[in-house]
């Protein structure tokens, strides 16, 4: 164990910090600490320009291999990049679904033609992606996907059905969709993974208004929507494998960046408590200290994850991480509003209040998306403690 950074890492850290200082200024100044889950509607036009600014500096897809347009950075340097990006107040990335999910999936499972067609647009910040997994009847039970797809005589594909909770679909050019290509199949079998343009007559996007008033999720309806013959990833019927492979790409490199943002939110709460005097309240002080403990846990937990834990095999720290951060974040949201008191009940544009209100409402989603608390606890009990498994869809 060694918490000391190397000198090359420090030099790289300084380089990122300096680039951010110079570029996240002027017309981009207003984007500081904006965007990201709960604030995705913040100035999407300017944030796309910011993506192209990043691309010009070669700061998109920094973990991708150089042959695909990335920098091929080591895990340590990717962590540093994400940390410094967040420390500087870098806005939530409009391109994160392309860069973090579909890009790595195509690198692993895609055809040469698919890589040539799609990777450059992700790297350049010119094409944006949405994820079409969940359906009204396929939430926690994702394998219960009912959206259908079939191949036409000319080899192209058609899609019929509905996806839901589709983040940023209204700001994206493309969507990847998990759909049932074998009629009558059940569970994980008979699914295919398709890439579709969103701007076509067979696709209708309908925003979902969230409890906090915003609409960063959508329902996406497919009525004979078309995908080119060459835009099926992997083999027909093996979509589940591709979809699950995609979820593996979250290697935790961005978690320290996420924590920088959490630390920023924590500071907002502390400032609010100091400003209105509630920092003198013993119960509030207990909760602030408790939140701080959580921040330290998340930092060291992420370092454990990134060090490969205790070698190959079970990664206990990785298994608990989603449950831990999402519940911590939700608690912080409640603490924030308790600190604000009645002032938090009034819809506000005050930059000292509004972000805390958004935190309060949107963090309710944290313990639901990407595996609900209940599913997480099942996984922890089954994988971490080897306890008996819940019923699974018949394969």
């Amino acid at each position, binding site marked *: *164990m*060694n*918490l*000391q*950074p*190397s000198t090359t*890492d420090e030099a790289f850290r300084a380089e990122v910090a300096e680039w951010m200082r110079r570029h996240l200024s002027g017309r981009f100044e207003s984007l500081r600490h904006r965007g990201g889950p709960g604030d995705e509607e913040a100035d999407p036009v300017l944030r796309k320009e910011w993506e192209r600014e990043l691309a010009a500096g070669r700061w998109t897809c920094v973990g991708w291999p150089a042959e695909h347009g990335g920098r091929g950075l080591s895990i*340590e340097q990717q962590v540093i990049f994400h940390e410094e990006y967040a420390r500087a107040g870098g806005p939530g990335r409009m391109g994160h679904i392309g860069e973090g999910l579909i890009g790595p999936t195509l690198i692993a499972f895609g055809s040469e033609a698919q890589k040539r067609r799609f990777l450059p647009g992700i790297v350049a910040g010119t094409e944006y992606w949405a994820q079409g997994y969940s359906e009204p009847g396929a939430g926690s039970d994702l394998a219960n996907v009912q959206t259908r797809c079939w191949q036409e005589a000319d080899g192209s594909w058609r899609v019929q059905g509905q996806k839901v909770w589709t983040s940023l679909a209204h700001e994206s050019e493309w969507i990847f969709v998990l759909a049932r290509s074998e009629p009558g199949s059940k569970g994980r079998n008979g699914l295919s993974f398709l890439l579709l343009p969103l701007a076509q007559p067979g696709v209708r996007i309908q925003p979902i208004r969230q409890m906090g008033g915003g609409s960063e999720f959508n329902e996406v309806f497919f009525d004979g929507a078309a995908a080119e013959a060459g835009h099926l990833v992997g083999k027909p019927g093996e979509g589940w494998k591709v979809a699950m492979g995609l979820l593996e790409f979250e290697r935790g490199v961005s978690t320290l960046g996420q924590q920088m943002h959490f630390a920023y939110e924590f500071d907002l709460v*502390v400032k609010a*408590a*100091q400003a209105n005097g509630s*920092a003198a309240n*013993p119960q509030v*002080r*207990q909760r*602030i*200290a*408790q939140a*701080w*403990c*959580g921040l*330290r*846990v*998340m*930092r*060291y*937990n992420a*370092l*454990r994850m*990134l*060090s*490969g*834990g*205790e*070698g190959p095999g079970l990664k*206990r*720290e990785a*298994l*608990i991480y989603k*449950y*831990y951060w999402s519940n911590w974040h939700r608690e912080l949201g409640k603490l924030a509003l308790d600190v604000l008191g009645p002032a938090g009940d009034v819809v506000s544009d005050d930059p000292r209040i509004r972000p805390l209100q958004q935190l309060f409402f949107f963090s309710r989603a944290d313990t639901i998306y990407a595996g609900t608390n*209940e599913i*997480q*606890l*099942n996984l*922890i*009990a*089954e994988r*971490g*403690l*080897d*306890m*008996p498994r*819940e019923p699974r869809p018949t394969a």
Partner: protein
Amino acid sequence: MNFAFTEDQVMIRDAARSFLAEESGSAAVRAAMSGEHGFDAGVWQRIGSELGWCGIPVAEEYGGLGLGAVELVLVLEQMGRQLLCAPYFSTVCLAANLLAQLGSEQARRRFLPAIAEGRLCLTAPLDSGVEDWHEAAALVQANRKGEVWTLSGHCPRVPDAGAADWLLIFAWVEGERLPALFAVPREISGLDIKPLEGWDATRRFSSISLGGVTLPAEDRIDDALRLEDGLSRAAALTRLAIAAEQLGVAQQCLDLTVAYTATRKQFGRAIASFQAVKHRCAEMMVRIEATRSAVYGAAALAAGGSTTDAQAIECAVARTLAADTCFFCAQEAIQLHGGVGFTWEYDPQLYFKRAQASSHWLGNADALRERIARALLAA
């Protein structure tokens, strides 16, 4: 930056795991609990001389292994897991730690080599407050006349005092700003050691009274220049040690519970298959791994060198989480064992009692959180 353990660290942890599983199982713990001093002298002897664990944190120049907080934490975690009954905590985590952090050079040369070799057993008061032994010092008055110190007062809670060769005692000296530290031999006139019958019998405590105990000048052992900083550093490291033991206690509570629920059948199935049971075990695991991250992180920080304030806060964080996690897991272990969980025969009660007793060693979680809040909100 690398957060993985070295091969040596893994080796030390695994050796501790297997030795303690062998020598400190439930039957051995129960036998030790009812012995005269509350531990098995043979096992303690082997820990000191054969395994060399007493020398882990002692610097090489004083005959120790010169290892750091990380190695110590790994061993302590296993000790907590097996509820090892031995004066290791009091000798190494209290006394040797105090000597290293604030003892004079002369005192370190006098005691540390013998501690490292496992030849000497020492202890010191274990306050229930967060003021880094100022509470203990307030109860003992030290007066100097010529070359002789006279100590009077009492220490309400000293672990393993009955077995200690020397007791390190904090006292107030009129006109001084900080507590002074004295080494008091056990066999000395005026010292009265009264064993307390604790509900947690895995670590014995005594109350001590000092009725005009006289000591030569050299038995005042603090180093005035390092005293202030040393008190804070020593307290931080002792809190970290307590946290590591609590982590082990929590882990064992979970392991016992998972094993029990896998064999206990009701309604025709193992109760481990009920989601109500699974989710509670999973919640235990979440809190344990979170605590583990905090404990290992604080240990890595302490081992790598950090400012006194940063170390104090980081160890307070680990200790806060560990105390809460430890009690939570002990309580869940009893609940999920059902009826047998509150019997004498089954082990959860032993862990439950340790969890409660250790919850206030050097400050309870609420008091430590207030200390953390003070540091955060001072800015």
